[in-house]
């Protein structure tokens, strides 16, 4: 270590308590930032995962234009065989075919409009949490059985229970009149009133028969093990689609645009709070370095008389601050990594969360996102602001006059 670096290092420890207090503030804020950012991004992952698990999946294959204007005739042909082929080609992904139609569902006493999904009973539980939310009865079992599962609110409104029959009236794919009778075999309770009020599911083959789909459907839903895997596999699945039918792939962002906006809004407010924390730390460093410079005014006068330029003294102060910041960075990052690694492996459960998650058939714990980015960005920003905080004390040295400085005791 050269003498200037040695001088900077030793200057740091002239007032050990003050230095440790400043380092302590930096370590605390760095650890907190790593903890908060890792938890925040873990929560986003959970939020995305939970939202997509309910129904949407990580991506969907659809007919062009279907996403923005859901018309019956915009279909994916031979959807069940297509889903089967994709399942064979991408065995690690969860894939299921769906059709969708609007119908008037009538019981003996009442009628309500309802969105009916034709689903593959065997594979739908892999891409949606709704089959796991059956509160009464059972989920669908056979692809061609005239069965239906409905939401709890709809069941209440229609005044039907397990074993009752519903009459479905709607329009077929070709615009013809569609009608069927289906037996209620299950009632699900998602906890989301809109879903429980307006959705129903029936086996896809039965659905295709009722609505004259001729083997077609509207969505092939794909769920990957992770978001990253979903992003990675999307082009491969896209390439595996029949090229002559003009089918399109939509990722989760396109399917749930509000989700990303909600995350962005949350991120903005969170980063505003982090900004306040960083500025507070920067002021603490500014205070330390300014005091350090002021109490060494006489000494600075001496070294200026020896031939040091103000710029060289400024660099010395910046070097001291960089060392201070580096200690805070390293210790804070280590603290953050330890805490984050623990919660990344074991997850964090907020009181009441496990019970709520069980109700929604969702994972009960937040698993922190432990990536180099989440663990380094906070301490790095603190380090940069620490350096910025030293600019003012360093610039003050440019105004220093050797004789006047040496008069200061």
């Amino acid at each position, binding site marked *: 270590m050269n003498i200037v670096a040695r001088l900077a290092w030793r200057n740091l420890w002239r007032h050990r308590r003050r230095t440790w207090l400043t380092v302590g503030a930096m370590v605390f804020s760095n650890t907190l930032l790593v903890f908060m950012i890792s938890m925040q991004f873990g929560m986003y992952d959970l939020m995305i995962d939970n939202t997509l698990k309910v129904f949407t999946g990580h991506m969907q294959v659809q007919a062009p234009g279907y996403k923005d204007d859901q018309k019956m005739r915009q279909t994916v042909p031979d959807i069940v065989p297509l889903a089967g082929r994709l399942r064979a080609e991408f065995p690690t992904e969860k894939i299921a075919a769906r059709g969708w139609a609007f119908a008037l569902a009538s019981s003996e006493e009442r009628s309500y409009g309802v969105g009916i999904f034709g689903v593959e009973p065997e594979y739908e539980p892999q891409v949606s949490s709704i089959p796991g939310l059956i509160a009464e009865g059972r989920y669908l079992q056979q692809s061609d059985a005239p069965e239906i599962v409905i939401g709890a609110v709809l069941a209440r409104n229609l005044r039907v229970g397990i074993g009752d029959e519903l009459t479905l009236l709607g329009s077929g794919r070709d615009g013809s009149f569609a009608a069927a009778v289906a037996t209620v075999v299950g009632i699900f309770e998602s906890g989301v009133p809109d879903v429980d009020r307006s959705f129903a599911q029936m086996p896809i083959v039965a659905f295709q028969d009722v609505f004259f789909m001729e083997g077609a459907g509207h969505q092939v839903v794909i769920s990957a093990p992770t978001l990253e895997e979903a992003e990675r596999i999307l082009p491969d699945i896209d390439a595996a689609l029949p090229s002559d039918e003009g089918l399109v792939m939509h990722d989760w962002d396109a399917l749930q645009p509000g989700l990303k906006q909600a995350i962005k809004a949350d991120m903005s407010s969170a980063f505003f709070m982090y900004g306040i924390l960083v500025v507070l730390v920067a002021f603490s460093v500014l205070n330390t370095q300014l005091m350090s410079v002021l109490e060494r005014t006489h000494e600075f006068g*001496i070294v200026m008389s020896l031939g040091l330029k103000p710029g060289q003294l400024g660099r010395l102060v910046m070097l001291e601050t960089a060392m201070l910041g580096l200690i805070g960075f390293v210790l804070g990052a280590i603290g953050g990594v330890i805490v984050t690694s623990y919660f990344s492996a074991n997850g964090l459960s907020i009181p009441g969360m496990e019970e709520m998650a069980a109700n929604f058939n969702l994972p009960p714990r937040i698993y922190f996102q432990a990536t180099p980015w989440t663990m380094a960005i906070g301490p790095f920003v603190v380090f940069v602001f620490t350096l910025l905080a030293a600019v003012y004390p360093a610039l003050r040295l440019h105004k220093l*006059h050797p004789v006047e400085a*040496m008069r200061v005791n």
Partner: protein
Amino acid sequence: MTAVRCVDLCKTYRQGDEDIKALDHVSIDIEEAGFVCLSAPSGGGKTTLLNAIGGLDMPDSGEVWVADRRIDQMSKGELAELRLSSIGFVFQAYNLIPVLTARENIEFVMQVQGVPAKQRAEQSLAILEEVGLSGLEDRRPAEMSGGQQQRVAVARAIVSRPALVLADEPTANLDSKTSDELMTLFTELNRHHNTTFVIATHDQRVMRYAKRLVRMLDGRIVDDIAQDAA
């Protein structure tokens, strides 16, 4: 050849409501290898003159020349360069950097000068031996006596062999024995290396070593005499 030339220097300080004339039309030439003592009672202007010669303080009017370069018109950076390369300072209060050892205090200036590490080490150990501090190179200022600290300060001032050494009351905090040793060292450097010394003092013992004695009073030179050095 002239090492220092001051022409009609004036400097006024404001102290409360009063203007103090620290330099009042001072002119002086100091030859190379000169050994000059500036003697004055407190407030007589000797430190102000020393600071003006060293480029630490600017006169209100007049000219200051060091090694044939006019310094009163130089920028801060040029003055710093000049001090680094050509002028050594010794202060009354030693003014060593407390967190550095004796050797590091000496090497610090050389590092700023860009002297390579190996040469720095050799020169610093040699100069410490020259000032009689061999074996104390790893001590910090707080672990040394006043005399030892002043020797380190002198070593720091002369290690780069500056042409001019300016000393402000260098013996004020030293006992008579140490003062004599220090002045002997100055004299030797003056003789062997032709270093020009300008020493501000009111210590009669120090004045005995000077080849030239300049007396000041109220910012003016009142007496300028050559003498046989001790």
